[in-house]
């Protein structure tokens, strides 16, 4: 659904996005992570034809966004951080206005979308009377109007209270489950990304520094938590026997290729070192992200 090949964007000599390539297949929830100014919004702007790439190719839904914007964006809905509307008009009027930029949309479809996002009864009120949460729901409604196949969400939970964040998260999952949408999500909320996304890419200073499955990130292959009476002695023994390759924080060990936790437990018990616990460590996306950013040097 989304295909970026060697995309670069320079603003007045400053590189905002540098040789970015990735693809998002149909049905996936793909997370785009990175610090402020990493290039996420610029990348999204290029995907939506709002920012012109300096070089590279972008295809949305199989169409080149630069040469065939109309077909590329027809099945796309987008939400941006801090949803903005024509405050002096009603929610329904806003939806009617925005729908005409895509295709003729029936009043029934507008009602359907309003109902889907839970704004029924408030659609005639002026948007200036809406809470931030209601504006977010209206933003979602406008994105759903053209019956999209691809949804691009740029910081959709920005500014929401915990309840609103939870609601938005459930809505995104519902969208994927019930409507089978492909979703590209840019977010600072790493636990949100962890709960929602199947795959992520991390941008740092405009460059992609990681792309992979969330499941792989979380499993952190080979990293094991070890609880023992003498961690230093235990790890020295394990190193000597070639069972581990690294230790971390006097708590974690990294298994050598082909070794299992059973090998570790067996070796320690045989050497008379008591093992209080040994388990596969599950890394959070947050741990992984911070480790990655620190390894690559902060901005």
């Amino acid at each position: 659904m989304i295909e970026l090949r060697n995309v670069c964007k320079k603003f007045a000599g400053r590189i905002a996005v540098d040789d970015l390539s990735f693809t998002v297949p149909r049905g996936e929830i793909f997370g785009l992570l990175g610090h402020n100014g990493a290039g996420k919004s610029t990348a999204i702007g290029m995907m939506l034809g709002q920012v012109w790439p300096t070089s590279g190719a972008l295809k949305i839904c199989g169409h080149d966004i630069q040469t065939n914007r109309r077909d590329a964006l027809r099945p796309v809905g987008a939400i941006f951080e801090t949803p903005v509307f024509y405050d002096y008009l009603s929610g329904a009027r806003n939806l009617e206005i925005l729908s005409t930029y895509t295709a003729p949309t029936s009043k029934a479809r507008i009602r359907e979308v309003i109902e889907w996002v839970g704004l029924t009864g408030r659609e005639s009120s002026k948007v200036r009377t809406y809470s931030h949460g209601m504006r977010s729901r209206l933003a979602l409604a406008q994105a759903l109007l053209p019956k999209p196949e691809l949804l691009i969400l740029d910081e959709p939970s920005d500014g929401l209270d915990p309840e609103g964040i939870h609601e938005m998260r459930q809505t995104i999952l519902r969208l994927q489950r019930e409507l089978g949408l492909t979703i590209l999500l840019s977010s600072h909320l790493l636990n949100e990304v962890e709960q929602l996304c199947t795959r992520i890419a991390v941008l740092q200073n405009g460059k992609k520094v990681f792309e992979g499955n969330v499941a792989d990130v979380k499993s952190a292959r080979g990293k094991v938590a070890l609880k023992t009476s003498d961690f230093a002695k235990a790890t020295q023994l394990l190193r000597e026997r070639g069972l581990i390759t690294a230790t971390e924080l006097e708590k974690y060990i990294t298994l050598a290729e082909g070794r299992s936790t059973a090998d570790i437990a067996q070796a320690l018990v045989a050497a008379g070192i008591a093992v209080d616990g040994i388990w596969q460590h599950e890394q959070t996306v947050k741990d992984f992200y911070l480790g990655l950013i620190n390894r690559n040097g902060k901005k």
Partner: protein
Amino acid sequence: MFLAQLKNELWKLFGKKRTYIGFGAFVVAQTAMLLMFKYTRWQGQFERLLAGNGYLASEYISALTVAVIMLVPQILLLMPLYVTLTGGDLVAKEAEDGTLRMILSRPISRVRLLLVKWAAGTIFSAVLVLALGAIALGFARILFPWKGMFVFGELPHPIFGLFPPGEGLRLYIFAHLFMTVNAIAMLSVAGMFSCFNMKPAAATILALSFLFLSMVMEHIPFFEAYQNWFITYHFAAWVLVFQTPVPWPQIFQSEIILLATSATAFVIGAMAFQMRDIKS
């Protein structure tokens, strides 16, 4: 689809309170001028001028005459201000508010979007000018009778015209049609600046500066031979409908130049809008 988009653009335009500032200012200014004309020596001076030229003042101090008197300063001062205010908002206000990003995530081309906005701005300009004319005439009619029309002054073309009521009304309508073209040209210049990466106020100020500079240069004796090159020179074409005989070729030449200026401003604006990056 274009009509639906235009209808919604008009909803956006006329849904804003600031759109009505111009209409409100016209009502206030016209009321003030009308009362001043009626209750100061202004009316007496006009009566003496008519009498001095051998005309019966009672036949020409009328709603039509007073409407034109009220119109001139508003056309010169207020109309450019309110039209460029709307023109400066066309694209820049949406970019500033953030709604432009939401619109441009949809499959509408930027040129099409600008065309819709420009068409809405053109309708606004026409409504503003026609409202100005109708309000002026309506207000004047409350205090003055429906009689012959007297137009006099350096506006900047020298005019001294006396017309029967029917003929006067016809010329008054023609004058407003030509003033609409002026307003469209002003709006187009402001709209052009609005397409560049700048704040709406900056676009309005640039457009007003452009018009002011054109007016100043037009009046510098050195440029007298080049007056045709200044847009403000052609803005005065509406006054020529009150000359006898009416110089239609000169009027139409000015109108064509103004329309061509509007089209040029639109094309430059469209190119700038097409090329720029839209960011939050």
